[in-house]
């Protein structure tokens, strides 16, 4: 801490705090406020009419508003769970491949993995929509070479969401791999030397040292992966429009459709609040889970 206890605090903070306040904090508060109101996004905030909990009642209700929201919510939950469940173990595996010093090529792999994270999601969606193409796409062609039947990918309700999970994993895993590498560099090599002296094998080393000491990294990764996953938008907006049969209608797409395109600002805001609450619950559970494992 500086011994110069202060300075023109207001001047230094005003630009950042002002912008974040006006364009993030106030809109967040407005989202909560609007969720209790009947309001058209096409009109000023002053026209909002208080309706209590009716929007919440509607989005969990039995009519189409509720059915669509609940479907979007469960699609997003499934999408998020699948993404995290694939990304985390894969990032550890790839992180170990990059970090090991026995054979060369780790840094090249890291550069390739990370460069996919630089690709705009819209380009990822475009390219993968062609890769997945049932007839002209190379993925089904390669599956054929190893004896699998062609898959419908994005065009079947059974496989569309999973197809989007795969392209998302491809785009994102490099970032999480770098996080894992950062975590690996923090593990003292003395621990491995000690374990080797005690005759531990590779497996014992991994489960006894590497994984426990990566826990903080993996907790951070899980939180970021969840927050990234609920933002999936481009592949849905561009390729599937929520279909087929509502199977890829995810919350970011659905909330925008309701709140912006249909201008049902109150309903959309209630959905956004539910997404926020769900995220808070998931993050709290992740932290609690990590702490419980600490105590064991």
């Amino acid at each position, binding site marked *: 801490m500086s011994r110069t206890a202060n300075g023109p605090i207001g001047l*230094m903070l005003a630009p950042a705090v*002002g912008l974040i306040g006006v364009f993030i904090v106030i809109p967040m508060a407005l989202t909560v406020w609007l969720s209790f109101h009947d309001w058209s996004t096409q009109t000023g905030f002053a026209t909002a009419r208080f309706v209590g909990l009716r929007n919440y009642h509607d989005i969990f209700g039995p009519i189409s508003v509720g059915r669509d929201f609940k479907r979007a919510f469960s699609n997003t939950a499934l999408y998020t769970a699948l993404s995290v469940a694939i990304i985390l173990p894969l990032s550890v595996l790839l992180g170990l491949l990059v970090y090991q010093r026995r054979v060369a090529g780790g840094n090249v792999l*890291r550069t390739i993995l990370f460069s996919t994270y630089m*690709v705009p999601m819209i380009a990822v969606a*475009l390219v993968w929509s062609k*890769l997945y193409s049932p007839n002209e796409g190379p993925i089904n062609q390669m599956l054929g070479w190893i004896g699998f039947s062609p898959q419908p990918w994005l065009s079947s309700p059974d496989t569309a969401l999973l197809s989007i999970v795969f392209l998302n994993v491809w785009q994102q895993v490099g970032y999480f791999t770098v996080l894992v590498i950062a975590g690996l560099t923090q593990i003292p090599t003395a621990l491995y030397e000690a374990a080797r002296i005690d005759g531990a094998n590779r497996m014992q080393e991994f489960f006894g040292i590497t994984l426990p000491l990566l826990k903080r990294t993996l907790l951070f990764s899980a939180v970021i992966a969840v927050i990234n996953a609920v933002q999936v938008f481009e592949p849905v907006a561009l390729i599937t429009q929520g279909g087929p049969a509502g199977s890829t209608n995810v919350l*970011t797409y659905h909330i925008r459709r309701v709140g912006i395109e249909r201008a049902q600002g109150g309903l959309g805001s209630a959905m956004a609040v539910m997404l926020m609450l769900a995220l808070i619950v998931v993050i709290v559970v992740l932290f609690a889970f990590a702490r419980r494992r600490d105590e064991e």
Partner: protein
Amino acid sequence: MNPRTVSPPRRPRIRVDAASAGLRLAIVIAAVVAAFPLVWMVLSSFKTPAESMQVPPVWLPGTPTLDAYGEVADVINAGRSFWNSAVIATVTTAGILITSLMAGYAFAKYRFRGRDALFALLIATMFLPPIVTLIPLYRLVTAIGLNASLFGVIVPHLANAFGIFLMRQFIAGVPDDLIDAARVDGASELRIVFSVVAPSVVPALAALTLFAFVYHWNTYLWPLTVLQGNSDDYPIVISLSRLLSYNRGAMNTHLVMAGATLAVLPPLVMFVLLQRFFVDSIVSSGVKG
């Protein structure tokens, strides 16, 4: 030597070789799988329309041609879109660098009431998915007359919590003596931020430049929402999305791939130039927390 480290002489040698071969294979497979979509993208952009629709797909263009790139420029006004993306990404990044330096300096070097609470509130906004604030933000930006313009795309993102966090982490490591010496010389605080502190945190600024530039070059949801169909101001990512429906979705693969290749280039070039700082900043600020 510790007797327990001595193991039978022959077995480890064979094991090591097998393990090395396995590792090498795993690295090659991972690299090929990761690179494949981008390689396919570039290869397909050189194909003729007929070639790109062939069943089964051909991997290498028989007669490589740049026609698709010329055609893309006609279909989506690529030059204008590129310019818009460059303006959005550059101006937003410059704004983020300035606001983050100033706020990061205040949080790292000043002591004031409510500092930690304010910092925590700012950090919390980092974890907010944009969709949660999209609806009122859209209305707000419309109300102040910035909608359907590049200003509307840029202004709400001129500051962000991640930048402040990153700058605070790095500025905390700048020696107080350096700052005090500048004060003794009569430098104003603003001058200190930009001509004493900033040169001491160049790697962090480089990392933030990459993060911000790539994010705002790539971002889709907000421009799509705020531009309201004002196609003159579309960034390349939005113009690109219109390629998929071009020619009613038929015979357009070569165009889609050429467009995607063009859009990917600026963030990739940025990455190649700055990747050293990018990885360093994640290592030193991302998880140590």
